[in-house]
């Protein structure tokens, strides 16, 4: 495969999408989410490069499903993902411990509440 040939192939693959003679060859990243089996959540598997949704689906299938390791894939154009990575919003500097369940001591309060309600502690529930 010569470089010229690769370029021609990419161009051919791109044309259907862009319909624009002057557009440069464009492969773009697609993010692939996969589910291992029914009942499991969709998890990010990785990404593929493809010129359009059709080939993105094919390549996602090959890279994340050809060994029967997935029973469902979501293929999302990376450009369509709305990203939030602002540290002021996600990692604010002040103490946030009161926003986490670990910030409270619940055990005694729960025991008191159960006593008042006349119920016992559920089996196996130690928290």
């Amino acid at each position, binding site marked *: 495969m010569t470089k010229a040939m690769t370029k*021609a192939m990419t161009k051919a693959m791109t044309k*259907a999408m862009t319909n624009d003679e002057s557009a440069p060859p464009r492969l773009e990243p697609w993010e692939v989410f996969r589910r291992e089996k029914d009942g499991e959540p969709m998890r990010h598997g990785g990404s593929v490069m493809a010129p359009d949704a059709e080939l993105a689906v094919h390549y996602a299938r*090959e890279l994340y499903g050809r060994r029967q390791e997935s029973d469902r894939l979501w293929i999302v154009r990376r450009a369509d993902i709305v990203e939030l990575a602002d540290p002021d919003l996600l990692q604010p500097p002040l103490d946030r411990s009161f926003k986490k369940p670990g910030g409270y001591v619940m055990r005694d309060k729960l025991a008191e509440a159960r006593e008042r309600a006349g119920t016992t502690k559920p089996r196996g529930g130690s928290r």
Partner: protein
Amino acid sequence: MSGFDDIAPALREPLAGYLLALADDEFVLGFSDSEWTGIAPMLEEDVAMSSLAQDELGHAAALYALLGESIGRDPDAIAYDRPAEDFRHARLLDHPRGDWAATIARRWLYDTADGVRVEALVGSSWQPLADLAALIAREERYHRLHVGTWIERLAADDGEARRRLDTAWERLGPDAATVLAPLPGEEALVAAGVVPVASAELERGWRASIAPTLSRCRLPAPPPVREPGSARQRHSTEFRDLHAEFTSVRRLDPAAAW
């Protein structure tokens, strides 16, 4: 499965020949396409083409196993211990390799013809063949989807990709229908329903099924096969080289365990 016990003696040889042709087609195509591993146009396509090649080798392994069980022969021996001239794959698979557009053209012509053939075999009166064909048909659907996507893209180009596709088409087109050329003793197999549809009828179905794509891609319909009697014989120098390659490891030590 119990070999050819439930097959009339007169049908055994034609059926063995039919299975061998099916298996050889998948094996030779699978091996040829596996040569792209590591050098396909882009990483994703490298994985995709290698995966398709593995699928075909898987189909070949299953078909050689079915044949081997039926005639009491080791499937590996059938695949690797025959001289090149005893292979019965279609002449379409005998052409020089190494050009991506030709690889796509070869695969598209083969997959569309093979798809029609395999889907007919799902109705075989011989259950082991019907069962295997049903499994193969499910995988071939994706092959046609993928290679169909590629041929449309190559055809839509107006530069080098289209030129290479046209060149490949001129070379491969005349041999495309060899995949569906009648096999020796086929009439008896068709009469018994072991092969549910005769080759001539399969070829008509195939031509009708590919017509819309050909017209969209501005590609001429493949001409009728020249010398259909040798459609699966008298293989090319290129195939002899390929055969030397895929038998080389086996020849090092035929008794080795893997």
